[in-house]
């Protein structure tokens, strides 16, 4: 490898020998020049953005980066919203890359993606393809015959026949496919027809994820694959119209080797005969290898839930599936703490536990945690209105807990933060809508937890003081916090932003949604963060910040302001009137996206509606 480096560097080296550090003891004695293979060793351990920074350091570093870029195992550009030109140029530098993840928010037509497809690609993820057509599938089939894994998200085009045709075409060409994930969002009923998957089933398919499909179609498909001896699906994830006992029984029958099962339904009406009952949950025990289970009923189209499952169903589930390591249950409104705690007691290897919308889940479920799995890493209890702070009393017993999410649990107050502050491993904390106050934040601050993601959206009683208490200098959180959401808090004013701007050194994502009292002065403070020891702000959400004025546009027009900003949300904000000015700015910085609607960070919730753009 030393030879290659020397070849790279001839003609570019300037003054001073790079040194070789080779084994015959050729040692570079001058302390201001590192041997090149040490530099390469360091660079190989860095992420893409840091590599780009390093390339600008010197010709030596530039060559070293160029040398290692093509051999990096994967390229994850999902945090970037690149335009077609920049994407082409970036992918060109990493020719031969096997794994690509691309955020297609700014891709206006199919050709922008087709041009970067190559036969090296084995793993391809195309996110947020709001402007792409189903024809992309044909192109992928033709250009990426070695594809092992495909993930693609479409904005629904309402043309299921076209999808079927293109998908069929693709499946005929990608015989090595092991993982297929197709998500279609944004139309009311974009029902995915699985028939192509019957005729052209890739032999090695292990993982299948479809959004959304019809339960009846899918049951028919399952009956067909049951007779295929070599088909060994291990992971199934579906979004459908209704989850029924029949579906679950057929899944269990046809896919006995299933390791992961993830089902979500979005019914249009109250399910009648075909619905999930205790019997369906009981039949899951025949999937003997099941490790991850998720069953969720969404109320997006109709206010309904799993009314025919009660505690007995949960007892049967916990008894039959003791090996579960990840459990997510949503919409089980008749299950009480007895049912949920049976899972906690029974699954001794449980790492992730999530319960959504359970009005009967009370503190008692967590009453005696001493016997419970110590392996829990993620705990999410969302919109469970009976839960109070007392549920978290034994939280310190969980020595590996990293994620705590209590969003929507409005009866949780300051005492909860006292318990959480003793869990030293927590890195992601979501307390949206909790009834916490500044005192609570002070308690949390004293715990000195290394929090990286913090959301206190809608915690109405918090004020600037609370933020001050939390970000006391020298606390770990100042160095670790990268994502902060203080949206919908009337008590947040410029003073809080001043604290955040001066102490949160690693902040990359900041949401000030619906913070009415934040003014232009706050934004000026954010701009002036010294960049030498602070990170660059990448995503900023100012949706409905009524206290801002459209004079702010002048701030964004400075070339040095908000360098590194990738996404800005200005929906319902006076800046909405400045589309033309923003247009000019985005022309000069094509990797910068401004969202004039109400989307959250990166438009991850609303990209499918961005079809007609500025």
């Amino acid at each position, binding site marked *: 490898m030393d030879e290659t480096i020397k070849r790279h560097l001839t003609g570019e080296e300037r003054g001073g020998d790079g040194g070789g550090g080779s084994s015959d003891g050729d040692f570079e004695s001058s302390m201001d020049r590192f041997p090149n293979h*040490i530099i390469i060793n360091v660079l190989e351990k860095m992420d893409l953005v840091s590599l780009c920074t390093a390339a600008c350091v010197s010709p030596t570093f530039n060559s070293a980066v160029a040398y290692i870029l093509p051999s990096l195992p994967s390229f994850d550009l999902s945090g970037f919203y690149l335009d077609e030109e920049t994407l082409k140029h970036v992918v060109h530098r990493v020719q031969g890359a096997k794994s690509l993840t691309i955020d297609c928010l700014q891709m206006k037509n199919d050709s922008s993606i087709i041009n970067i497809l190559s036969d090296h690609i084995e793993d391809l993820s195309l996110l947020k393809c709001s402007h792409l057509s189903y024809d992309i599938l044909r192109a992928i089939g033709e250009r990426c015959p070695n594809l092992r894994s495909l993930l693609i998200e479409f904005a629904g085009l309402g043309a299921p026949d076209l999808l079927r045709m293109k998908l069929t075409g693709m499946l005929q060409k990608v015989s090595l496919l092991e993982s297929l994930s197709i998500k279609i969002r944004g139309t009311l009923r974009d029902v995915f027809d699985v028939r192509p998957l019957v005729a052209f089933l890739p032999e090695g398919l292990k993982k299948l994820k479809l959004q959304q499909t019809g339960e009846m179609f899918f049951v028919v498909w399952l009956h067909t694959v049951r007779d295929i001896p070599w088909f060994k699906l291990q992971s199934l994830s579906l979004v459908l119209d209704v989850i029924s006992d029949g579906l679950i029984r057929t899944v269990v029958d046809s896919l006995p080797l299933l390791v992961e099962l993830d089902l979500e339904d979005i019914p249009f009406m109250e399910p009648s005969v075909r619905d999930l009952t205790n019997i369906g949950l009981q039949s899951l025990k025949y999937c003997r290898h099941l490790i991850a289970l998720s069953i969720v009923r969404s109320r997006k189209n109709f206010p309904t839930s799993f009314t025919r499952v009660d505690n007995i169903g949960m007892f049967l589930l916990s008894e039959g599936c003791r090996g579960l390591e990840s459990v997510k249950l949503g919409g089980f409104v008749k299950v009480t703490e007895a049912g949920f705690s049976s899972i906690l007691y029974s699954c001794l290897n449980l790492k992730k536990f999530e319960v959504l919308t359970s009005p009967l889940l009370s503190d008692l479920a967590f009453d005696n945690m001493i016997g419970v799995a110590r392996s829990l890493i993620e705990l999410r209890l969302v919109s469970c209105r009976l839960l109070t702070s007392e549920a978290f009393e034994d939280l310190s017993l969980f020595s590996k807990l990293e994620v705590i999410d209590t969003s929507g649990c409005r009866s949780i107050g300051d005492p909860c933060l006292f318990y959480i502050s003793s869990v030293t491993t927590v890195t992601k904390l979501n307390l949206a809508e909790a009834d916490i106050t500044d005192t609570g934040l002070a308690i949390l601050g004293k715990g000195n937890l290394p929090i990286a993601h913090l959301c206190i959206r809608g915690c109405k009683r918090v004020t600037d003081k609370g933020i001050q208490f939390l970000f006391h200098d020298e606390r770990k959180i100042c160095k670790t916090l990268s994502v902060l959401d203080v949206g919908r808090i009337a008590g947040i004013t410029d003073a809080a932003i001043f604290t955040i701007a001066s102490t949160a050194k690693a902040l990359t994502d900041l949401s000030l949604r619906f913070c009415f009292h934040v003014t232009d002065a706050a934004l000026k403070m954010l701009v002036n963060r010294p960049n030498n020891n602070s990170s660059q702000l990448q995503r900023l959400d100012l949706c409905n910040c009524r206290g801002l004025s459209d004079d702010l546009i002048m701030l964004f027009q400075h070339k040095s302001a908000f360098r590194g900003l990738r996404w800005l949300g200005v929906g319902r904000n006076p800046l909405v009137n400045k589309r033309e000015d923003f247009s000019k700015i985005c022309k000069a910085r094509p990797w910068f996206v401004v969202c004039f609607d109400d989307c959250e960070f990166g438009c991850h919730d609303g990209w499918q509606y961005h079809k007609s753009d500025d």
Partner: protein
Amino acid sequence: MASSSKTEQKKMLILKSSEEEEFEIEESIAVQSGTIKNMVEDDFTLIPLPNVDTETLIKIIKYMKKHGEKTKSNEKDIEEFDKEFVKKSFTELKELVLAANYLHITSLIDLLCQAFADRIKNKSVKAIREIFGIPNDFTPEEEAEVYEQHKWAHEEGKEHIDHSAY
């Protein structure tokens, strides 16, 4: 024949730093260094290391001793040691990596390089230059080109940031 109850005599080596200070160390531990291993094969027992100063040598010996007693059971212990080991200043780490490089101790080189990677992760171009002591030897044209190429990632790289408006 009664075997001796004591362990067999371990072969000791002497390492001499650039400042002429001598340190005794078991051969079985010292050969984690490729350079020392080579010299041992040429029958050296006193190993002069004119490129490694005393302070650095002491730290390296500490590292080798800890990693010399690696077994299945104390993996976590060694992880903790490694974590603490890299909590040093940049200057100290630089001396260590250059010494580890000279001594050819692969695991230590990797550990130190990872520590560097973690530390320069979010730093600016200027800061990286200072840390590694690398002068900015781009020509203005080269620098502009490299900056253009990478603007999308972080938008900094030039020494002088353009403050004009669009």
